[in-house]
């Protein structure tokens, strides 16, 4: 029993990372109807920025806000330069453009920082709590805490500020928003900036565990896709719940299903995505899209 709880706690730790990347995916999907295949790579690039800052002597907790600010600006830039020209184009075009961005960013990181694995500093202290025999590392607690704070801030932004109101208006109905004088383009840039920031959080959190290299986020992205699909691509709450579920499911499957084991864990998101799409395509918290042909 203790062992099971231990696995669940570890699953929640990695699930929180998936949740934050899934949150970034969902944010962009809500605003632009685009699934951003480059989201993980953008997060990886942000993590490299953080690494560079720390390596040049900046303390971690100062490097973090700087990184997040850089990511925010970077996300806005990506929207303006890469995504805006294909906004409203067929889905195929948009997907291919984000895949192109994926390849480009991945190689760019390799070009600048090489493909050798880098150690990323663990921002949280070693050791942990002992709760009735279940050991909870400070790092796991820290990750969950940071993701909870990010969620809380996003909630405050969207529900209690005028900027958030404008953003929700654009997500709900861009045409009406534009007619009522909202600069839709700017809001979309803001949305991409926010998503890149949230994604950067996931990158920085996962880097000490996975070690930093250009392909670091590839696997995480698949889990985040599964999380977003499970929660519903248009539901931020769903993304978080989905992320935690996927994290726990992944850890438990790896630990207890002998046939699968640690090396085939990456099949878990595939099964989850397929199952959700076949049983409930809109996800747990998503709204079913009704199409008018």
């Amino acid at each position: 029993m203790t062992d099971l709880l231990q696995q669940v706690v570890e699953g929640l730790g990695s699930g929180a990372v998936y949740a934050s990347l899934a949150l970034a995916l969902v944010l962009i999907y809500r605003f632009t109807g685009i699934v951003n295949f480059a989201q993980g790579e953008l997060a990886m690039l942000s993590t490299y920025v953080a690494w560079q800052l720390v390596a040049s002597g900046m303390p971690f907790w100062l490097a973090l806000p700087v990184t997040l600010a850089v990511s925010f600006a970077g996300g806005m830039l990506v929207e303006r330069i890469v995504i805006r020209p294909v906004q409203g184009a067929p889905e195929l075009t948009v997907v291919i453009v984000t895949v192109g961005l994926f390849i480009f960013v991945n190689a760019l990181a390799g070009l600048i920082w090489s493909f050798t694995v880098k150690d990323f500093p663990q921002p949280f202290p070693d050791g942990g709590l002992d709760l009735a025999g279940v050991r909870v590392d400070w790092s796991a607690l820290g990750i969950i805490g940071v993701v909870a704070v990010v969620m809380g801030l996003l909630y405050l932004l969207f529900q209690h500020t005028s900027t958030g109101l404008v953003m929700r208006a654009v997500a709900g109905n861009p045409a009406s928003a534009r007619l009522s004088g909202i600069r839709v383009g700017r809001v979309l840039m803001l949305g991409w900036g926010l998503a890149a920031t949230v994604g950067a959080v996931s990158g920085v959190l996962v880097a000490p565990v996975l070690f930093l290299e250009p392909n670091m986020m590839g696997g995480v992205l698949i889990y985040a896709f599964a999380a977003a699909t499970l929660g519903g691509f248009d539901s931020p709450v769903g993304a978080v719940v989905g992320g935690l579920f996927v994290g726990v499911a992944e850890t438990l499957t790896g630990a207890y299903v002998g046939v699968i084991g640690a090396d085939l864990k990456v099949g878990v998101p595939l099964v989850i995505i397929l199952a959700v799409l076949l049983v409930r395509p809109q996800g747990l918290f998503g709204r079913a899209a009704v199409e008018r042909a």
Partner: protein
Amino acid sequence: MNTITTALGTDRARRPRAALTVLLTAAVAVGAPFYLAPFQVFQLTMVLLYAVALAGLNLLVGFGGQISLGHGAFFAAGAYTTAVMLDRYDTGHLATLPVAAAGCFLLGLGFGVPALRLRGLYLALVTLSFAVFLPPLLKRLEPVTGGSMGLTVDKLQPPAWSGLAEDQWMYFVVLAVTAVALLLARNLLRSRVGRALLAVRDNESAAEVMGVRLSLHKTLAFAWSAMFAGVAGCLYTWVIGFVSPDSFSFVLSITLLAGLVVGGLGSLYGPLLGAAFVMYVPSVSQDLSEAAPGVVFGLLIITVMFVAPTGLAGLPGRVLGAVARRLPRTTTTRAPIPEAAPAPDAEPESRAESGPPVTLTPADPAVVDAEPVGAPPRTEKE
């Protein structure tokens, strides 16, 4: 759409010229291995083999309008089927081709069933996660696949009567298979199946109303496309003589899609140009740095989507068209249309004239989205 109809249309007036082109191409293709160094012949062989995979992907993406980010997985399935047959059962090379083709066709059929329900990006998600999942699976099935060490099998050997070197013989065999495959793809597209596919891509509902069986054709498109990838995988094993899980990481899938996009989606020659791209760009830019191919690929994909969505294959047509448009314009200066001037607030959504012919409807998705809360669940159109 226009470019495709002209590409597919059997234009009788152009027959003699087309025949001449085919003859010339065939002459060059047959003569090439006698004038090139073995390494260059090998590279050409790889181009042909990738062209088969890209032709399959083109059926699905270019003509079927479905997105697969996992075609490397079918490529791998074909390659491994061949390698395992050669390694364990010693069947001889020729017997492996139909088995790899049929196996991948069935695998594609199996994946086509979820493809019925998954449109656009969801299919991309599923195929991508399949491509990510396959290499660890291959490593796990060690008794059969040789695990992460892979399998080394015999390459294709030239028979004594041919008097050809190994690289030349492989080239001719691959050339023959590629020619048959490309011909098959072309005829498939000109048939009932191809027309149905185009109809489904351009407007699913309209196609269904016209009597096209959506489920059948979407599944079949996936199966055919997987079969082509499988054949290419089989040729790969024949030529390379070695398979390992790391050769078929999801990077391969993404590279295939990238090559196709650059070569030309929905074009019959696109796969060949794209295959040359997949083969030569990495080998040329690899000298600069390990990351250079990715940078080039990524930038090119985005650029192509912005300025030339028909890829390299469509470029001559687009350039000629642009020139033709430009010519009369010099005499009749177009008067500015007053309402086209955007309000100062509106985003400059109108793009340069050279932009892709996609219609920009920024407000459109919202109309669909704005459904009442109690709306009925999504209606599956099958």
